[in-house]
């Protein structure tokens, strides 16, 4: 029966369903593959759809060979073969398309569906988002239903789908065990090269760059604190440190990337876990100042947390910070860098500093800092997302004419003023603030929280954080920027006043989606080797590696299969008619005794077959058949007969014919 089925031609409806599901499953690959590859695939699908009506339109063998050559050329040209992942996926996709063109018998469609499963998996090499996972999961379910339908003579969509869901449910325990116990790699499977553009802080700061970024409400990273979150004025998320300036542009110092000795365990440190969105850069963000670094990272001499690999995928890491930590080291080179000035410093700027120097003690640099902050506080400076363009010497223009700026204007000009005054200064960029998700215990830091501040060298105190923006707009530190309001108006607006009911509902939904997204990442995608180890420890399995893990996987898998098997064998409680259940018990008994029970056989036929196999039990079998047929198909129905049937089925013993028993 099975072989006959395999050779049967495919019902057009099932083939149509297969084509539709495959086409839908391939759609997300549009983000990864060259349009020509997907175009080729969809052309093949379209061709096959047309051939449903006109089977003669299917390509012959030679045309198919030519198409294959064209497909391979297409793969080589579009991927250049420099990225094995991309080339491999592209090859699979075009080959799946070609396979569709030679679908004839049911056997072919099975091959196609399995290839389809594989191509579905390749999408996870590019993205592991929850949305994609849900979409592909649903598609795989339908694809499985098509498989089930192919193995049935009469496929009813609902029945077939129910069967597929049943298969998935049965597979779930095994999938869970494998998910939890399968050995994890410490680095990503693919050294991912990507030309994708990421939103986020770049390694340098030009006037206006952070202001642009502040218009984006995209998530930069999410944080979960181990204990009490720090107060807003300490929520500075340290990123790259900038040393070089030409007056308009600030950039990092390549040489300062040298690794700093680990700070070591810090009892005062506040632990937290960050889930960083991909940035395409090496540096990570940590609460100012990171003292306990995660594995696979180092702290550079500017106390920026730097990863060994570019963050091209979401990254979850644990770190700890001590807000009261003093960065006390200053090399001669750093002193020189911290005092570096642009080629030309405007006389008005130098004059202003000289004026301050006259009234402060050079041994007390903090007095100079205070004078500068007073200057920002007392003069009519405006904190705005739309500062306008600065011509000529930007610092001079900003300090004396426009007086409109975003944080980078304040941080940049403040650092410059300090350097002119002979105090080593540097600019730190990162984020400031964060918002708590009311539905979950985590904080969201957005691109609009991007910030720049200054650090000055104070003997005895080390690098000392000074945020000139706080002098101009103290609210910036306390509340997040209200992006929409700030863009419309002249000044930056803070907080979110009183949203309408509909808006509140929407915001609520956004927070909920954020919580789900982080949960998905933390528990599924980000289930790393470290998490696996801690799970195993929690299970009391300790540190399992290699062989031990493989044994655990085998045992766990066997247990999962056993659970599914046993629960499938449990008699299902059925309300109402007891007869079908009794009959199933009877047929199960026959099946175990070796009778070939076929669902389409009537009771008479079945019992006749059983009686031929077990002539010694013929009387018992005949009585069971008679009572069952009477009850199920005759007019009689009384409880006494049902009980009698149940009793007889229970007592039925099937003795093989050769056993001679008197």
């Amino acid at each position, binding site marked *: 029966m099975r072989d006959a089925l395999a050779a049967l031609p495919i019902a057009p409806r099932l083939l149509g369903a297969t084509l539709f599901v495959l086409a839908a499953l391939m759609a997300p690959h549009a983000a990864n593959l060259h349009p020509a590859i997907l175009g080729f695939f969809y052309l093949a699908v379209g061709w096959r759809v047309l051939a449903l009506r006109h089977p003669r339109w299917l390509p012959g063998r030679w045309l198919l060979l030519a198409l294959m050559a064209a497909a391979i050329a297409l793969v080589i040209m579009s991927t250049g073969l420099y990225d094995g992942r991309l080339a491999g996926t592209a090859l699979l996709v075009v080959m799946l398309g070609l396979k569709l063109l030679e679908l004839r018998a049911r056997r072919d469609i099975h091959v196609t569906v399995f290839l389809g499963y594989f191509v579905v998996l390749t999408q996870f090499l590019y993205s592991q988002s929850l949305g994609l996972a849900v979409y592909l999961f649903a598609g795989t379910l339908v694809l499985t239903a098509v498989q089930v339908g192919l193995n*049935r*003579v009469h496929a009813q969509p609902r029945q077939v789908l129910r069967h597929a869901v049943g298969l998935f449910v049965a597979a779930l325990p095994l999938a869970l065990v494998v998910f939890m116990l399968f050995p994890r790699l410490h680095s990503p499977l693919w050294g991912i090269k990507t030309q994708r553009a990421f939103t986020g802080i770049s390694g340098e700061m030009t006037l206006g760059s952070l202001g642009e970024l502040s218009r984006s409400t995209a998530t930069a990273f999410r944080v979960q604190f181990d204990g009490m979150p720090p107060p807003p004025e300490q929520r500075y998320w340290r990123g790259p440190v900038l040393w070089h300036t030409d007056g308009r542009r600030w950039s990092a110092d390549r040489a300062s990337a040298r690794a700093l000795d680990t700070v070591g365990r810090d009892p005062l440190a506040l632990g937290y876990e960050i889930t960083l969105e991909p940035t395409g850069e090496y540096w990570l963000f940590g609460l100012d100042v990171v003292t306990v670094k995660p594995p696979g990272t180092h702290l550079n001499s500017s106390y920026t947390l730097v990863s060994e690999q570019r963050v091209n995928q979401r990254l979850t890491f644990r770190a700890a910070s001590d807000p009261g930590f003093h960065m006390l080291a200053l090399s001669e080179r750093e002193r020189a860098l911290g005092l570096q000035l642009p080629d030309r410093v405007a006389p008005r700027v130098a004059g202003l500093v000289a004026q301050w120097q006259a009234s402060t003690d050079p041994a007390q640099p903090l007095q100079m800092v205070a004078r500068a902050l007073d200057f920002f506080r007392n003069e009519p400076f405006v904190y705005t997302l739309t500062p306008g363009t600065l011509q000529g010497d930007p610092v001079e223009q900003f300090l004396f004419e426009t007086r409109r700026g975003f944080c980078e204007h304040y941080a940049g000009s403040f650092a410059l003023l300090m350097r002119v005054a002979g105090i080593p200064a540097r600019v730190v960029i990162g984020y400031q603030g964060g918002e708590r998700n009311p539905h979950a215990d985590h904080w969201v830091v957005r691109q609009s929280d991007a910030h720049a501040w200054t650090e000055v060298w104070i003997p005895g105190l080390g690098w000392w954080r000074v945020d000139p923006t706080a002098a101009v707009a103290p609210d910036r530190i306390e509340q997040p920027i209200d992006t929409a309001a700030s863009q419309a108006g002249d000044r930056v607006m803070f907080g979110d006043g009183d949203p309408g009911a509909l808006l509140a509902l929407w915001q609520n939904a956004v927070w909920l989606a954020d919580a789900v997204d982080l949960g998905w990442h933390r528990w599924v995608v980000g289930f790393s080797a470290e998490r696996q180890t801690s799970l195993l420890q929690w299970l009391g399995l300790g540190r399992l590696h290699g062989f031990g893990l493989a044994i655990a996987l085998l045992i766990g898998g066997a247990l999962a299969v056993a659970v599914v098997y046993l629960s499938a064998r449990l008699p299902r409680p059925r309300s109402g008619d007891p*007869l*079908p259940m009794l009959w199933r018990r009877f047929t199960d008994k026959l099946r175990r005794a070796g009778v070939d029970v*076929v*669902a389409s056989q009537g009771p008479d036929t079945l019992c006749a077959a059983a009686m031929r196999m077990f002539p010694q039990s013929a009387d018992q079998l005949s009585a069971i058949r*008679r009572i069952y047929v009477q009850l199920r*198909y005759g*007019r009689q129905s009384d409880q006494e007969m049902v009980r009698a049937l149940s009793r007889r089925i229970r007592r039925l013993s099937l003795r093989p014919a050769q056993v001679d028993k008197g």
Partner: protein
Amino acid sequence: MPKPALNNAIAPGDHAILRQVLDDAGRLIVGKPQALRLSLACVLAGGHLLIEDIPGVGKTTLAHVLARLLGLDFQRIQFTADMLPADILGVSIYDRDDGRFHFHPGPVFAQLVLADEINRATPKTQSALLEAMEERQVTADGETRELPEPFFVIATQNPRSQIGTFGLPESQLDRFLMRISLGYPDAAAERELLAGSDRRSLLRQVTPRIGPQSLLAWQAHVERIHVSPALLDYVQALVGATRVSAHWEIGLSPRAALALLRAARAWAMIDGRAHVVPEDVQAVLPSVASHRLNALEGDTTEQVRALLEGVAIP
């Protein structure tokens, strides 16, 4: 435990008489018990029978034997291309003596009509017979005349020589409860046939077992054979399967489902049972369903078998 009694025994006399009919018929039509039983079930279910087979395998003999055994008067109509509806239904002829038209009933006015090679006649003539079969009456010259009771048509057609014939359209095929074919006898049966005496003389020796009145009582009794909800589930599953399957052009209609049930009841009655079991349905399904279904691919008979194998008994 006492054997559950069949408390609703067969009403019109002993059902052994039906067995006897089959045994008697089996002596003339050797080696075809299944076809005989199906034909008898068809009569008892009050339906008409279409036999599709090559000439010379005993179609006419079967009709003759049934007519004799059931005590029905018998008419045979050989269909030809030039036949007119009046040749079947009858014609009104002017009588010069009393100056009036008198209706001369055609051959259709018989209890058992053998319509031989029905596909040779034009569709107009075919439909005259088929309408009479359905309505069980004939309307001529504005006057409606009842056909005799019981009324049973056995039509034959030759599937091989199709040139110059008018195949029955599907809507007309639906008027036949069953379609069967006899096929060649096996070697032993054929030997018996060759060695035995002439069928015609044997036919003359056949004595009627059931009279027309008794047959009507049997037909009425078919309706009283019990059909349980579980069996209806099965019939619905079968019919439903033909509707969703991709193997058939169209599925079975509710009328076909009713026909299936009626045939299964008659089959159960011949077996001496007061209720229908799934095996009854399985026995009659190929004959009841195959001419109502049109397989998109492959052999219809094979597909019907696959249908039976594919539908589980609830």
